[in-house]
């Protein structure tokens, strides 16, 4: 290469895509419910004022603080753990049960994104090959595994512990669709502008994941 970089970003991505045909199939499949089911619902939600949808997002995000707090501790990231604890106290009390993110607005405390997948990576568990999961999208086997412990520390699941399977799925889907409604059609832009959205998403996932784990 004619040009060498100094911002430690030039290392090649180690994990390639050995099961690409399967992943491409799943990627194609995932597009269908996305474009024909979840996205139309999300668009419908946009009728509601943005502020109210943000409050719903804030509320659930505040509720899932234990996931981020615990995983920060497990990775010995005490600063991140402190941030999460501080955010939880401020937003629960001043932000009325978490519907307002005053920790961000007045205290410059930004949400971290620690999860068990990063904890696994932190302790050297390799990611395994790239894997596109049905409905959940881009992942690694390690990441798929990481979702399980997080589900146990997710208070939404404690709260729903005695309910049936579908209400639980419904709440989680609702939280995701609400996020989708708040998003500015990022995925649509990618499919429109890129030659090969699959590779674009693959690469973005790999870059982001390695940065998050390495931090």
């Amino acid at each position: 290469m004619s040009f060498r970089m100094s911002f430690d970003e030039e290392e090649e991505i180690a994990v390639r895509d050995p099961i690409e045909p399967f992943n491409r199939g799943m990627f194609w499949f995932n597009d269908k419910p996305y474009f024909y089911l979840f996205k139309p619902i999300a668009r419908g939600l946009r009728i509601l004022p943005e502020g109210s949808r943000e409050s719903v997002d804030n509320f659930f995000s505040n509720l899932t603080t234990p996931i981020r707090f615990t995983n920060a501790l497990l990775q010995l990231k005490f600063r991140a753990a402190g941030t999460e604890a501080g955010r939880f106290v401020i937003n629960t009390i001043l932000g009325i049960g978490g519907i307002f993110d005053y920790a961000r607005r007045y205290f410059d405390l930004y949400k971290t994104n620690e999860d068990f997948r990063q904890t696994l990576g932190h302790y050297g568990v390799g990611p395994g090959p790239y894997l596109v999961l049905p409905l959940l999208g881009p992942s690694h086997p390690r990441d798929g595994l990481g979702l399980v412990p997080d589900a146990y520390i997710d208070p939404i699941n404690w709260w729903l512990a005695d309910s049936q399977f579908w209400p639980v799925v419904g709440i989680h889907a609702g939280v995701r669709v609400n996020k989708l409604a708040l998003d500015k059609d990022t995925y649509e832009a990618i499919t429109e502008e890129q030659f090969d959205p699959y590779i674009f998403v693959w690469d973005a996932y790999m870059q982001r994941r390695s940065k998050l784990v390495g931090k």
Partner: protein
Amino acid sequence: MRLRYLVPRIVLLLIPLTGQAEVAPTPTELVQETVDAVIALLKEKSLDPDIRRDKIRALIDDSFDFRLMSQRALSANWKQATPDQQERFVDLFSQLLEWAYIGRIEAYTDEKVRYVDEKHKKGRAQVDTLILSGSTEIPVNYRLHKMGGRWRVYDVVIEQVSLIRNYRSSYREIVKQQGIDGLLAQMDNKLKELKAKADAAAVQG
């Protein structure tokens, strides 16, 4: 050290200082001025869409180094390309990047941008910004290098994803299968497609 050696050295040292007297913007200033100006243009609803695009393009051309971006996006294939192919690639790639960048900035016109940090490392700089959008914040980092005494952006990193590196993976695959001319043809088609769609939307809207 003897004085007659020392004097020329001091003179040499002073030259860059006097050069800076014309006040080239710092990396943060450059990014902030560009982003603010682009957003201001996007907010001017009465402006003709074509004129707006041209104005935005002029702004971006001024602060982005498309040649270096192209080199990095093609990586090893850059050297394989003929000078003519290189020129065409720079032209098409800059237009595609403008579409992508303007499209994203457009979606976030009403959000606040916060300038969080400026880092320097071996003659390069990184300006960290945070787009505060509703209940989420999106980290957008600009990477700059100095060229002709001025800072210029050569990569934009959105949520830890480098735009240039992202393009590199896609383009590598296409060049592998269809060669550089195949890539250029595809880029040309894509631009026409995007323009047709924008025109259709403008007629409707």
